[in-house]
């Protein structure tokens, strides 16, 4: 399945959204555990994408979801807008990155022009089963 075709956009966000918002729910002063439970239950009832943060109730929401949070009476602080965009291309590994790293760690790929290693010997009883090939 190796595919060296350069990546190109394969799709567009279906709903035409341009951005989301990273938000936290403001905790009232001296909030009790029961009050916190009630607040998080409100969030759960809204079916929103809660980020895995143990310190606070933090979410990634779109504009309509942000409106729903506020309409539910929750105090929300918008931390930042998060544009809907592909991963920064400078963070995607190049083919040379991958090949160079593999060669440094494992040696040249078997069959490669610079492969000087003997072919690995299959030991008796260790061959993969047909199912596993």
């Amino acid at each position: 399945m190796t595919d060296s075709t350069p990546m190109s956009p394969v799709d567009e966000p279906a709903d035409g959204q341009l951005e989301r918002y990273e938000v936290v729910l403001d905790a009232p002063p001296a909030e009790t555990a029961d009050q916190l439970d009630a607040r998080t239950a409100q969030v759960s009832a809204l079916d929103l994408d809660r980020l895995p943060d143990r310190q606070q109730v933090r979410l990634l929401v779109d504009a309509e979801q942000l409106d729903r949070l506020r309409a539910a009476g929750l105090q929300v602080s918008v931390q930042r807008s998060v544009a809907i965009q592909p991963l920064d291309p400078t963070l995607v590994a190049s083919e040379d990155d991958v090949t160079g790293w593999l060669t440094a760690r494992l040696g040249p790929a078997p069959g490669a022009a610079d492969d000087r290693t003997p072919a690995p010997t299959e030991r008796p009883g260790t061959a993969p089963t047909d199912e596993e090939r």
Partner: protein
Amino acid sequence: MYRTVAQLATVVEQLVATAPELCTLLPLPQSSTQGTPVPAVRIAAPDGPPIDRRPGVLLIAGTHARELMNPDLLVELAVDLVAAYRNGTDVVLGNRTWPAAQLRTVLETVALYVLPCVNPDGRTYVMTVDDMWRKNRRDNPGTSCDGVDLNRNADILWGVTEGQTSCAPCTDIYCGSGAFSEPENKNVKHLLDTRHIDHFVDVHSFSELVIYPWGHAVNQTTDPAQNFRTLPTGTCRPLGRPGYQEYISADDLAQFRQVAQRIVDEIAAVRGRRYSPEPGMTLYPTTGTHSDYAWSRHLADPTLAKTYGYTIETGPSGNDAREAFHPRDPEPIKREAESGLLALLQVAAGG
């Protein structure tokens, strides 16, 4: 740097080609929703007990598309193990060095199964369209919304919308049309069904946690009758039982805590980051997760052996979700998580 789906596959293919005495390609029965083949690899040294009688460890990652570090982490772990075995080189992870001799023993004792990227379509979508995409790329009929949350789709209280689980297709926590409706998840189930797996880890991001059961309710060790098998599933409602607590035996809970602490300690040995070992419920309630499913199997079917299921949440919360899901420099996080996974392998090997 993050590898594309094709590059991850290249690493797996080259591992198998370079070290066929150690590595076996395991083509999985299901292609992804959009037709991408999903490879897994078994790594086990030929010396030692027969492979099918060894303790089995299954590591998976990339369930949530935007959590980009973890598929890279798993293929790098696999390469490090193979290089250590073949070349006798220690694996140096920050301040923690894993001696080659110890890793050789692990590979001669354990059968390691690695499924680096459960959700390849989602990963490609993150790289090409939306870098905060979470789900797979299922076209949900009758809606304009795509995707199923693959970590809400397993057969453990599937469709019970406790906490962060939903039956609404347009949410990011949509559990799908049925338990294991998604081909990506059928592959995970296939490995659990067909291999002897003692320890299972699903690697996610973020918040520096080592999570063990349960995710849907607080643990209790005194009332075996209060257990998930008595609860209705597929209700699209929360549990609706105030005060409900899920049973786990005291011995099993102690085992989870002990192993989680070992993982935490070996993560900290790399550069001092202290992950927190805790039940999944502590973060927020969930149902249908891979790791709870792995653990629940022997309870739902007593003919099955125990599979200890963990979720590791790699990396700090920070204050910017984009940076937390795919940091510009993921290397330190991957290395500490690798040390935690090596610790689990050593536990599986009896060390």
